[in-house]
């Protein structure tokens, strides 16, 4: 902010023996390195998982790879710009991001088109994107702005109620209008995480959380019970989750194929590019199911390495959020943490059949242009927040 000093040094170089009062601007190299590793790894895995299908469908083994590389390039430009733009500018937008979110969702109605059986995409001239992705970013910015503006009254019931009242319609709209349960869940989780961090109360949250978990358990129990009586047409997705092999040819197919991939990887994996499940067996191999291909090819170690990278990334963001110079920056980073963490956890949970199947991509690794561009932009914003941190030598 002040002086625009362009002197960055890694944290490690700040020695405590230096008694000077000189301020050094923080730049998180670990964070950037992990990000580059994830994106680079993603490129390799997208190619490995997609070349066979690309060859069959388009006669070009690198069809998906090229599109993915282009998205990554755009993404890195996004990182650079977001890093350069002082995040304080976003707070001037006020409630505008909320309106923008509503506008994007409503654009589905005139401009939307269908892909893979769901109307989730918007086409504007040469550009097409998935409607839910900008909404995630928009909601993060909006909530951060809101919390920052009402920071003094943030624990008042009225303010909390307004916050909930303004965010609730968004994920309902995402769910209903774009017919995208997965994105609605992610947006919901981002909002919950941000409001949770902003407000002081624990008791209410713990109560809500308990009620939520009990509610979900109740629903599952109800579905299983009613399946026993009416033959199980109601929610096959849940039933398939509980007994994959019984629903192997229906709702359980994709997850079961993912389990085959993961299981057959074993500890060491089959080797890069050696997956067989990607040969038309596993649908969406380069997309939502890419983690299972990683496990099949690179084994338990590959899978663990990916999870570890995400853990480091999340932890670095926790450090940045807790050290952010103001509440606005911290809230933005909290939103991004929630976004990344929820997507990673849900994606791996789906692939390992820990939860029922729902289409969620693995951040930075899965094929998908919109997702990667917005995620990278968010990373840039986080780096900009980090840039504000002043490391003072004591």
């Amino acid at each position, binding site marked *: 902010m002040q002086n625009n000093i362009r002197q960055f040094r890694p944290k490690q170089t700040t020695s405590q023996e230096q008694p000077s009062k000189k301020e050094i601007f923080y730049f998180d190299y670990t964070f950037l390195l992990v990000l580059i590793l994830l994106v680079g790894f993603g490129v390799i895995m997208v190619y490995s998982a997609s070349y066979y299908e690309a060859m069959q469908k388009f006669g070009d083994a690198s069809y998906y790879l090229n599109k993915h590389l282009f998205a990554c390039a755009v993404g890195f430009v996004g990182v650079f710009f977001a890093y350069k733009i002082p995040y304080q500018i976003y707070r001037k937008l006020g409630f505008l991001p909320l309106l923008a979110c509503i506008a994007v969702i409503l654009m589905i109605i005139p401009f939307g088109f269908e892909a893979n059986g769901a109307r989730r995409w918007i086409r504007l001239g040469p550009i097409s994107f998935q409607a839910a992705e900008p909404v995630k970013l928009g909601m993060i910015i909006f909530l951060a702005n809101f919390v920052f503006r009402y920071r003094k009254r943030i624990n008042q019931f009225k303010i909390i109620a307004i916050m909930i009242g303004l965010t609730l319609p968004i994920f309902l709209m995402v769910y209903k209008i774009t017919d995208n349960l997965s994105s609605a869940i992610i947006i919901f989780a981002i909002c919950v995480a941000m409001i*949770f961090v902003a407000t002081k109360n624990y008791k209410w949250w713990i109560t809500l959380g308990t009620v939520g978990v009990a509610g979900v358990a109740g629903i599952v129990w109800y579905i299983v019970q009613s399946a026993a009586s009416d033959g199980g047409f109601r929610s096959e997705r849940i039933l398939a989750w509980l007994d994959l092999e019984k629903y192997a040819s229906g709702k359980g197919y994709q997850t079961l194929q993912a389990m085959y991939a993961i299981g057959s990887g074993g500890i060491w994996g089959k080797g890069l590019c050696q997956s067989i499940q990607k040969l038309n067996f596993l649908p969406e191999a380069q997309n939502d199911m890419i983690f299972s291909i990683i496990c099949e090819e690179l084994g*338990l170690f590959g899978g663990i390495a990916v999870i570890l990278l995400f853990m480091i990334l999340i932890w670095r963001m*926790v450090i940045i*959020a807790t050290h952010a*110079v103001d509440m606005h920056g911290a809230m933005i980073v909290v939103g991004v943490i929630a976004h990344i*963490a929820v997507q990673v*956890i849900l994606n791996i*949970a789906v692939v*390992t059949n*820990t939860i029922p199947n729902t289409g969620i991509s693995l951040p930075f690794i899965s094929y998908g242009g919109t997702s990667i561009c917005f995620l990278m932009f968010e990373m840039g914003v986080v780096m900009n927040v980090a840039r504000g941190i002043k490391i003072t030598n004591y």
Partner: protein
Amino acid sequence: MFVRIYQKKKILFLGVGSLILLLGLFGRLMYLMIVKSDYYAQMAQELHERERDIKAARGRILDRNGIVLADNKTVCTISVIYSQMEDREAVIDMLCKELDLTEEYVRKRVEKYSSRERIKSNVDKEIGDRIRAYDMPGVKVDEDYKRYYPYSMLASKVLGFTGSDNQGIIGLEVMYEDYLSGTPGKILTVTDAKGIELQREGERREEPIAGQDLTISLDLNIQNYAMQLASQAYETKEAENVMILVMNPQNGEIYACVNWPEFDLNNPYELTDVWSTKLTGGNTQDNLNKMWRNGSINDTYEPGSTFKIITAAAGLEEGVVTPEDTFSCPGFIMVEDRRIRCHKTTGHGAETFVQGTQNSCNPVFITVGMRLGVEKYYSYFEQFGLKNKTGIDLPGESRTIVHRMENMGPVELATMSFGQSFQITPIQLLTTVSSIINGGNRVTPHLALKSEGAEGVTVFEYPVTEGIVSEETSATMRDILESVVSEGGGKNGRVEGYLVGGKTATSQTLPRGNGKYIASFIGFAPADDPEVIALAIITHPKGVYYGGQIAAPIVRQLFENILPYLEEKEYN
């Protein structure tokens, strides 16, 4: 403005919470990839691998001297792989030309989108080699085995044949399927979800284990000669069929089993000339079943006078008659209010039991049967093993059809005594007579001797029931039956230089009075120590129909040829 302390705590809470959830997934992953790895890997492999069977060479069937009766010849299976073919039209042209198939048939298969499509199997190796020489991509020539019977008709109903998958259909081929079939091998190839083979994964082979060779008791020469005799009798007597069974009475090994007309084992689904004139009309499968039927085992008949051997043995064993006992035959006998005639209506007059047997005199045997009574007669019937199947190692043996004891009155007893009013199989008669003349040991007639394969040799053993008649009765029976041939009705069975025992039979088939007969003769030699027993049955002969006239000469001719041969071979 600044981040509040509680907010920092909550951020940490959030971060730590996420890490804990990720660690949970970590654990889940370890569970799936270590504990459940084998389970899912196995299922995945089953999903990925397509298997092609490699047929195992079926075990051969050898006669007792090691001559191959059922063999394998190499044939080819022609198939196409859709994704590998380059010029489909050329493939269609070539296959039509070489395999002599219609274009429509070939086109349908060549243009079908499948991983592998079979065009034709059982193609001669020569044609297969020619197709291979075209070297067209996507056309596969797989070598395969097909059953081949070098003697085509020889013992067709005994050996049986195999189906398109080389599985036994009838006869020994089905009876010894487990020994003969072997274990097929496998070629396992990894494919993608559409079934396209992946070159990089290579293929895994499980080698087939060849079936075991089965050595059977048939003697090619005896079978062949018996077949010639049967076909001659069939032609000259215009009979419905002619059966000849030749067995070793001491152990039950069958030397020959002829059921003329036989059929061509190499074309079992085509009616042979003899059969196609016989079987006109009717449905094809029924006709084939008739053609394949082994009458000497699958069908029963009224044995007639040959069965007097059994009545005589029972009477002697029980002591109700001795060879010297005298009888008087007026040409009939009254049983209750029924008058049962002797075949010699003028009567045989006074005769001893031995003479009665030589004359095949019905009243004599009815008298012996009456002396025994229903219960005794029935218990001997059971003791001789006539109620049970012989246990021969061929499929579909028929049961004896006989009155229940409580339904047997004097008339039924009388008719049974000379071999009527019940039915047994030819093999049953042969086995029972063997047991009576061999010293009283009920043997199990059989064909398979041993099975020999890579895993070793299995020698088959068959049960023997000893003492169904005493040695003494057995010796007496041999003497009496020898006299039947040397002095009585069986004189056409005499063979110069050998003592032959035997008994003729001429029985009218049901309904009585239709003029149809079954002529038969059962003979054994040497009469004092039998080494071979033979039964010849001519069903529905035209012209002369007496067993002693037409069946006995068959056995004589057979014995004339095989007795010196058997002496030389020493099969015992």
